[in-house]
């Protein structure tokens, strides 16, 4: 298996190199047969990469411990589901997984763009093969999954217990699909620059891929936050950890790109912006991979430190230099067809959107790399934590939320201030009223008030968008339709526009969740005897006792907690602690009771030998708005992927 797997990797690399060479030759010689040969080579490379992955997966499933990667990342007690997750759980497996996903995306590009002009497709395919070749080179020579161990152990080490959670099996593939997916728009951008075809053709081609990558990144980020919330047991879901930031930054820039391309399509503006944004988004995915794998920044999520960082640094440098060089070379062909007519215009709004999102990404990048910068300058590693990120990102987030509200109402080209006020007056009144009601009910936190007010305003503008759309549809002769039917047909006919509105509704819901975080309550109860009661956030929690259990791999202690209110028993929660013998690792499993208003989040914080238990309890107001908002955002993203229907009628 080791030899077969290794040969599949080397063959995949060789055919990838051949595909890249054929593509480059096709660009140079302008020959269709060379492009076709490159396409076929991409399919063959994907085949060999798939065999390499299948081999490693088989080895994991059957427990072939002669392969070092298999015994390092799995053991006999793991379920099939977690053995699958072990494929990307370790360094070299995850890089092979990346290379495989790249090959699948390349096949997707070959199929979807089989009839597109070679001028654009050939350089794009060559670029994809260059990226794929890099990852396969790593797999073949630097981080090799098919390495024989010094001996064959009777059982493996197993997967890190923290990773043995369903979400943690799904979250990495989602993120990888997003990271790798960003390579496709990047490749087409390179194709456009190389071919000189810098009109809207390349934008239209990459729209599907850019949205797909964005969607996977969104889903991956939300899933990662959910895992942190339920597994790490600190009451929160986002700690601005470097690995979290690594996935967040390309999503921010990708968001900017998806909005900015609308301007190029409609007005022929922002051409250089769009080129920079799409390249930056991909470069940030490589930067994120560099952060995760090089060990230069410490993180709870990071892979072990290795020499692979130097390879990524070199690759990153090449990408940055090549991208900038190509943009500078073709800058003359990317002049705007129109100028900004007014600062009160949709174009200006999108420009501000770009600046704010890029500013946010830069803030996160600076904060993530600050330890390295401080060490280089002052020989002291200084880490920036949540206070830095929250202080800067909160106003950035609120500014973005405001733009989400303004976007639907601001006109193209120019809008008078009176016209803007007319469009915004009702949403602003609603916002002020919402803030007023909250103040009356005792809410005094400034940021929370502003957030809730903006959320109310934005929701009103989105509702207004749907109302205007339904009215316009009725004016076209569909007055007989009921409102739900009209709305459904509106969304179906124009999924890009109204799918975007649904994405924005999801964003508003997530901001409601953020605002709730300002009111988190925290309680501690230490060294409780069974039968002891304590109060947390209006709930009475009675510690009933402990229950111990053990399996060959795990020792578990569960605490039985009865939750009541005003003397009425409501439900039971069982937070517990697991001791994983093989990994010699302790993990806490929180118990959560969720409602739309808040989560009651209970942690079994400590146990002593005499059976006394200590608890930590959080009340997390509105946190479920964040999770449901994430789901709505992703559903909206799926709608945006759908092609528009040809006519308004019907």
């Amino acid at each position, binding site marked *: 298996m080791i030899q077969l797997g290794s040969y599949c990797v080397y063959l995949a690399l060789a055919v990838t190199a051949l595909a890249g060479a054929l593509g480059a030759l096709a660009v140079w010689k302008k020959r269709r047969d060379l492009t076709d040969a490159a396409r076929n080579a991409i399919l063959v490379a994907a085949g*060999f990469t798939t065999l390499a992955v299948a081999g490693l997966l088989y080895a994991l499933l059957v427990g072939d411990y002669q392969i070092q990667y298999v015994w390092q990342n799995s053991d006999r007690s793991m379920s099939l589901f977690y053995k699958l997750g072990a494929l990307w759980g370790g360094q070299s497996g995850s890089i092979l997984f990346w290379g495989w996903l790249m090959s699948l995306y390349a096949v997707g590009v070959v199929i979807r763009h089989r009839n597109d002009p*070679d001028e654009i497709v050939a350089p794009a395919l060559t670029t994809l093969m260059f990226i794929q070749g890099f990852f396969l080179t790593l797999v073949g020579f630097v981080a090799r999954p098919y390495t024989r161990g010094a001996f064959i152990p009777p059982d493996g080490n197993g997967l890190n217990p923290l990773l043995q959670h369903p979400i943690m099996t799904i979250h990495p593939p989602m993120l990888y699909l997003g990271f790798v997916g960003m390579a496709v728009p990047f490749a087409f951008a390179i194709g456009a620059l190389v071919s000189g075809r810098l009109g*809207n053709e390349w934008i239209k081609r990459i729209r599907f891929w850019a949205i797909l990558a964005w969607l996977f990144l969104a889903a991956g980020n939300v899933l990662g936050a959910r895992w942190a919330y339920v597994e790490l047991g600190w009451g929160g879901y986002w700690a601005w950890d470097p690995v979290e930031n690594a996935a967040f930054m390309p999503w921010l820039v990708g968001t900017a790109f998806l909005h900015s391309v609308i301007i190029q399509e409609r007005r022929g503006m922002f051409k250089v912006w769009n080129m920079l944004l799409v390249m930056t988004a991909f470069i940030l995915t490589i930067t994120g991979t560099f952060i995760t794998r090089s060990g230069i920044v410490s993180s709870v999520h990071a892979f072990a430190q290795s020499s692979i960082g130097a390879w990524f640094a070199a690759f990153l440098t090449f990408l940055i230099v090549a991208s900038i060089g190509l943009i500078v070379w073709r800058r003359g062909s990317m002049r705007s067809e129109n100028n900004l007519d007014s600062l009160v215009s949709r174009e200006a709004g999108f420009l501000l959107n770009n600046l704010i999102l890029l500013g946010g990404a830069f803030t996160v990048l600076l904060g993530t790399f600050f330890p390295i910068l401080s060490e280089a300058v002052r020989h002291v590693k200084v880490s920036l934590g949540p206070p830095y990120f929250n202080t800067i990102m909160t106003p950035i987030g609120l500014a973005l939320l405001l733009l989400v509200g303004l976007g639907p109402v601001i006109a*193209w080209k120019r809008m008078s201030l009176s016209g803007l006020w007319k469009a915004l007056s009702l949403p602003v009144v609603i916002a002020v009223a919402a803030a007023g009601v909250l103040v009356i009910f005792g809410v005094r936190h400034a940021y929370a008030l502003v957030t809730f007010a903006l959320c109310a305003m934005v929701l009103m503008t989105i509702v207004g968008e749907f109302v*205007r759309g339904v009215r316009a549809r009725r004016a076209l002769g569909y007055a007989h339709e009921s409102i739900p039917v009209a709305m459904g047909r509106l969304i179906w006919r124009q999924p890009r526009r109204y799918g975007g509105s649904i994405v924005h509704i999801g964003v508003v819901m997530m901001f409601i969740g953020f605002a709730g975080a300002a009111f988190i309550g925290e309680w501690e109860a230490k060294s409780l005897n069974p039968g002891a009661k304590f109060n947390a956030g209006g709930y009475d929690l009675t510690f009933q006792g402990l229950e111990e259990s053990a399996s060959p791999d795990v020792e578990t202690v569960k605490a039985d907690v009865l939750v009541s209110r005003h003397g009425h028993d409501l439900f039971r929660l069982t937070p517990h602690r697991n001791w994983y013998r093989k990994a010699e690792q302790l993990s806490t499993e929180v118990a959560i009771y969720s409602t739309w208003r808040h989560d009651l989040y209970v942690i079994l914080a400590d146990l002593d030998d005499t059976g006394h238990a200590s608890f930590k309890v959080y009340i997390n107001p509105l946190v479920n708005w964040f999770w449901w908002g994430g789901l709505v955002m992703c559903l909206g993203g799926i709608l945006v992927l759908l092609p528009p229907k040809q*006519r308004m009628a019907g």
Partner: protein
Amino acid sequence: MTVLVWILLILLVGIGLGFIAMPLVRARGGGSPGQADERREALREKEGALQLLRDLEQDHRTGKLEPEDYAVLRPEAEARAIAAMKRCDGLAAETGADVEDPIERAIRLERVRLERGASR
């Protein structure tokens, strides 16, 4: 590694290389690839121009485009759409792609070739 696996690997490599080389040894049938590319590009441009017109209409109806700006942008978008449609029709006529009957198509192509030859 067993002999069988080696044979399988060699077979896969052989099939793979053959598949890659196929376009290089096989002549492509049908019309000139350049013309087919041009037709598809023209069609894509036409679809894009028509979508732009639809978007302008929707923005105008929902009040996101001021009437004065709509009066300027609409003719520009219409002109773009008409030019794209003319280009599509012209390319279709040149290649006979709009003609379903193969004999008629061959006659049309021959006629275009003769006309081009006469005009030189």
